[in-house]
């Protein structure tokens, strides 16, 4: 595995405040992407009780879509991100309607099916695009010097995009009929059905939105990291960590957990190394699982 989610190190570490500001801004930028991954993952679990181990491969598809559209065909980068996100979202709807719908409520079988899909997609990408890591040029270059912290513009683009997506997602869940239905299904799927919610509609929709978020994350991160068939494994693991931290199925938990993991990792990556940071992330999961098995904001069933 290549160096995971490398932090941006400050040019100068003149003072403690500057270091702290840099850690904060790095952590927020990474954390936002974790949130993007974890939200879809937790939404899919909440609505369908499927642990989507193919979530990283949806991220990977977003990356390859960017490689083709932006890298090879020279599309506008922002248009590419939107098209990649919706394309992967549509792919998710197909995955759900063709394969995963048979495993609703059967957590173990669903998990194995998702794993099979993940491995198939990885192998497929390997065959089509080759095993070597590829890259696309950065759509924007340069850094924003805030004095206390330095933020590269491309990270800022990712952060801004993510915030817009998160706001739209929140609005959807909070203020639309389908969003309300999704929250209801998460809390009691049987009673949601009694109110008239059709699983055959709301499940593909939830899986599609989760896929859209993952595909969008992959497209956003493609210029920052390299693109290859296994690029989704680490983000998937991170999403898993975040969701365990925040509480499986909890939307606010995914936001809290994502930002928390981003900040913690950023701190240890800056102070020690990214390896230590990754290790601490998982150590955090162990601690949470022992002392708060349902996660920080998990429901007490």
């Amino acid at each position, binding site marked *: 595995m290549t160096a995971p989610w490398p932090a941006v190190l400050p040019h100068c570490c003149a003072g403690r405040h500057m270091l702290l500001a840099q850690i904060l801004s790095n952590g927020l930028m990474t954390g936002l992407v974790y949130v993007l991954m974890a939200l879809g993952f937790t939404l899919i679990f909440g609505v369908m009780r499927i642990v989507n181990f193919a979530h990283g491969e949806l991220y990977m598809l977003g990356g390859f879509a960017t490689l083709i559209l932006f890298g090879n065909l020279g599309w506008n980068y922002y248009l590419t991100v939107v098209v990649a996100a919706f394309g992967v979202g549509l792919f998710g709807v197909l995955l759900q309607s063709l394969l995963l719908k048979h495993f609703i409520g059967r957590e173990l079988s669903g998990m194995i099916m998702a794993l099979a899909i993940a491995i198939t997609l990885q192998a497929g990408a390997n065959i089509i695009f080759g095993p070597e890591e590829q890259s696309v040029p950065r759509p924007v270059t340069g850094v924003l010097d805030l004095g206390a912290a330095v933020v590269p513009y491309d990270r800022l683009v990712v952060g801004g995009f993510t915030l817009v997506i998160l706001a739209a997602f929140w609005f959807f869940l909070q203020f639309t009929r389908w969003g309300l239905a999704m*929250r209801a299904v998460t*809390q*009691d799927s049987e*009673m949601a059905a009694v109110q008239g919610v*059709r699983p055959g509609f709301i499940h593909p929709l939830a899986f599609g939105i989760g896929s859209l978020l993952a595909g969008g994350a992959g497209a956003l991160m493609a210029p920052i990291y390299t693109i290859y068939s296994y690029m989704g494994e680490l983000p998937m693991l991170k999403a898993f960590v975040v969701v365990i931290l925040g509480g499986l199925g909890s939307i606010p938990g995914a936001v809290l957990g994502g930002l928390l993991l981003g900040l913690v990792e950023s701190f240890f990556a800056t102070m020690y190394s990214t390896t230590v940071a990754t290790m601490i992330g998982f150590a955090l999961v162990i601690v949470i699982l022992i002392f708060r098995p349902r996660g920080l904001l998990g429901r007490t069933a």
Partner: protein
Amino acid sequence: MKTLEVRNLKIAYGNVLAVDGITCRVGEGQVVCILGANGAGKSSLLKCIVGLVRPAGGQVLWDGEDVTGLPPHEMTRRGVTLSAEGRRLFPELTVRENLLMGAYLRPRDAAFRADLERVYGWFPRLKERSRQAAGSLSGGEQQMCAIGRALMSAPKVLLLDEPSLGLSPLATREVTRIISEIARAGMTTVLVEQNARMALGLSQYGYVLETGRLALQGPASELLDNPWIKDIYLGGSGPSQKVVA
């Protein structure tokens, strides 16, 4: 005249028959109660009617149509809705959102707004707490919210499963009053209860289940006077002898 009818219904969980050949019916505007001890199959019967449980045999007929085994959303669309045992609210949604979920299949039109106001009129406490998470309500308030949610679908038949379960005597009285008001407004109602006195007081007709079978049925007034019912369900002291009404 729209009738909900169940014919020789059988429900199995694994090898165990929870409901073993039950036949019953409720006519338009009627209130019918189903009595019986825990595990008699009352809840299974209601769940099967709304499509949450598939029957092992028999038929469910609604308004002349065979609706056996239809999924829940189809039953809701046809106007048959269930207020489940234990309230089963969406605990993290607000009271208002729970009521909106009840009206999930309806357009947000004038009739919807009128129904929302009507529910708030019946349950002023719900209006006061409309922005509060449903899980934070008291038991009685949750039951009101559950009944309100069921009414928001503008049902033609209301199936109420144990509305008095776990409620204080005061809250039970309140819920009883509301159910009788709803019934007086002409709502076809099937009431499943362990509180037989309350249920028979509200209904015109009653069925008594015993381990998945129909033990007794008759007009509510006759059941109230039945010595066996008095003995077992009303806590009276009489000869323990079964008399079919």
